[in-house]
């Protein structure tokens, strides 16, 4: 029942998104624009600073993710579908998991476009450890999205919600950024540091478990009046 509700929520989001593809296109383009801005800031005499590629990738994902979260829940608020979801006889944590999976899917598509671009622009060896890189990206995206979905959902009825989301989200997701950037930088070294990357991935997985659990606990009391 739980998984069925989550799947129904994901399917609803996917159906709406496939019709217009608005959030997908705008988020991808924003991420690419971010990469360019940071590239101009961090490239000296035609060569990027050390570890710039890893840092730029994760910053762009974080910024694009914040935007995507804002847009997704703005859409819910506009159509008053969030209230309908809350009124439905479905367990609240299942609704949260459904929204979470939708956001994670969107961000993974953005990353699929961003990573080859980073590899192209910064000569980063993205093909040297593809599985580890994917593992880092998936665990990091889940961690960021878990906290982001909860905060975006709880801010839907708040004032100044657009600026509040980054203010609340970024301090909490700093461990994700640290682990993601350091792990990706370890993989982009000329000789990839596999054990280091695995350690960062383990930290990310632990973060995911703790914060998804915390979000599942607090979703119900936060969304009720």
């Amino acid at each position, binding site marked *: 029942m739980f998984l069925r509700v989550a799947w129904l929520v994901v399917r609803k989001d996917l159906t709406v998104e496939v019709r217009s593809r608005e959030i997908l296109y705008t988020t991808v383009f924003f991420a690419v624009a971010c990469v360019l801005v940071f590239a101009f800031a961090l490239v000296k005499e035609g060569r990027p600073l050390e570890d710039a590629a890893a840092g730029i990738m994760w910053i762009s994902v974080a910024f694009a993710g914040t935007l995507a979260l804002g847009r997704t829940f703005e859409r819910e608020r506009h159509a008053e579908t969030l209230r309908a979801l809350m009124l439905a006889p479905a367990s609240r944590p299942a609704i949260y998991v459904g929204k979470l999976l939708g956001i994670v899917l969107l961000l993974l598509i953005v990353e699929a476009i961003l990573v080859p671009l980073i590899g192209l622009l910064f000569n980063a060896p993205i093909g040297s450890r593809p599985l580890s890189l994917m593992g880092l990206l998936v665990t990091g995206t889940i961690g960021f999205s878990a906290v982001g979905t909860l905060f975006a959902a709880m801010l839907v009825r708040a004032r100044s919600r657009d600026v509040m989301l980054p203010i609340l989200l970024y301090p909490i997701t700093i461990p994700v950024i640290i682990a993601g950037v350091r792990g990706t930088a370890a993989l982009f070294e000329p000789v990839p540091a596999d054990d280091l990357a695995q350690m960062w991935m383990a*930290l990310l997985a632990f973060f995911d478990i703790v914060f998804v659990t915390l979000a599942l606990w607090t979703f119900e009391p936060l969304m009720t009046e």
Partner: protein
Amino acid sequence: MNRVYPVGVVLAVLMFAAAPYLVMAAPDMQVQGATPGVLLSYKIFFYHVPSAMVMFLAAFICGIASAIYLFRARPGADHIAAAAAELVVLFGLIVLVTGPLWARKAWGVWWQWDARLTSTLLMWMIFVAYLLVRRFGGPGAEKLSAAMAVFGTANVPFVYVSVNIWRTLHPATSVVPTLDPGMRPAFWFCVVSFMLLFGLLLALRTRLEQRRAHVEQLYLLADED
């Protein structure tokens, strides 16, 4: 209760008036070949460390009170949490100003990205975000800020661990003084003074918050007629 406050305030004032004499009487730190400026500057530690202790205690209280407010919906817990959050920001500001002042003299740099400093800064920012949400979040902001406090408190160990691992890859030297027995009376006197101040401020601020919430309720009731 009303009779305790004036006595407590007078006692705190007297203790803080006496503190500088005790601090100056404490022996100088023994460092080989250091200039007098460095030896004297360490004495800021008598205010820096107790402030840090109070800051962490306040953060702990705010986290627990916020969790109680979220899961048990007791309004009294929310008042305590709001007061404690303000005190985290206040004493955190003292820590973050006195720390660099001391660091500049002792280490030659204003700031270092080691685990303790970074997690303290981050915790301070999380509680500043708490206050921002409370002030600008509109109706229902108490629950949003409570969620922020719970997530923020859960987050600090992660930040500490990840920055620790990050820093061991780029080691930095630091000077941590061991507590000379001659320094102990001054140190514990300052700890007691700060704890007393913290207790007074927390009690007074909580009472103020209770009164404010009561007045707000009365306004709402009056509006209904």
